[in-house]
């Protein structure tokens, strides 16, 4: 993956109003591959949790015949975490506040998946 293109793509995601930060995570080991503007957030911990969440949900989706994950949206009281699996075992993660336009963030994440594929 071209690091420059990856960081450009992460920047585009974080430019969406309400996005607190974005990162690329290795799904297999939960390590941070790249991140942008994750203020007040422990990137390593988020990466590990995001990878673990994706893995567990993936097993549930498999057992429930929902197929491979395309997008995951964890909604909480004052914000959300969005995950989108990409190529090469990578997962794009965005952390947002509660007023974010999830659809817009999703579009930027999808663009990033296509860009870094």
């Amino acid at each position, binding site marked *: 993956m071209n690091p420059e293109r990856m960081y450009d793509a992460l920047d585009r995601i974080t430019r969406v109003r309400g996005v607190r930060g974005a990162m690329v995570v290795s799904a297999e080991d939960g390590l941070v591959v790249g991140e942008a503007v994750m203020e007040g957030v422990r990137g390593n911990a988020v990466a590990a949790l995001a990878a673990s969440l994706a893995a*567990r949900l993936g097993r549930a989706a498999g057992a429930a*015949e929902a197929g491979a994950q395309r997008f995951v949206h964890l909604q909480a*009281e004052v914000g959300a975490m969005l995950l989108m699996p990409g190529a090469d075992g990578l997962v794009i993660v965005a952390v947002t506040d509660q007023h974010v336009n999830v659809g817009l963030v999703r579009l930027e994440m999808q663009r990033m998946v296509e860009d870094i594929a």
Partner: protein
Amino acid sequence: MTAELARDPASLVFIQLAEHLRLQEQLDAAMRVVRTGLERYPDRPDVVDLYARILADAGNRDAAREAWEHTLTLAPRHVGALKGLAYLAYHERDYDAALDMLEIALSEDPADEQVVAALHTARAAADREDAEARLRTGADIFAGIEGADHALLLIDERGLVLGGVLRDSRGLVVSEEVAAYVAGAAQEAERAARLLALGAWQSLECEGTDGHLHVSTPSPGAILLVRRDRRVPAGRVGLLARRAAAAARGWLEAQAG
């Protein structure tokens, strides 16, 4: 009637006399009269039926059952015996047996208002018991909601199924396996929301290549899973999940009450 019986010991008036005494709750006297009659007429179904009713009134249900069963050997569709056995079955909460007996009795005598009334009572009891059983087992939690029979699942935070059912494309139940995985995902969702200071997690949506999963917590300690085909828009899955969550909350409150 007593005088007539004294004049003619072979008279069948003893049946009316015993029934009269039974209705007056003079059960000992009724029993004496009917036993005397039984010695003379042991194979008359109406006499054995009356004997059974007196036994039942006296609380001797086992003997009453034997007498009614004997009545049916003498007259297989004897309405009185069928009603009597239905009465016993009803009090043993064997409503199916009671309904079977009463339906035969009704086919024998469609104008018997007692049978009609007893059928209503037994059916209502059977329906009530069935509803209670379904409530206990959680089979009806999502009744009336799209996907209730194959795509809605309520589990506890340990991954144990509380109600609803999830089936795979072959129709096989996969509830327990999915429940275990979903509970694990819910734990991770809770941890992630806490770490990111996002407050309590509310829902976890997964769009897959073949379908959508929507996970939420309708009540503390409970997790709801909704699965939908991928052609169903994610927003609609959310609406469905809210309906299912309301149903789950109602059921959980009923369980707690």
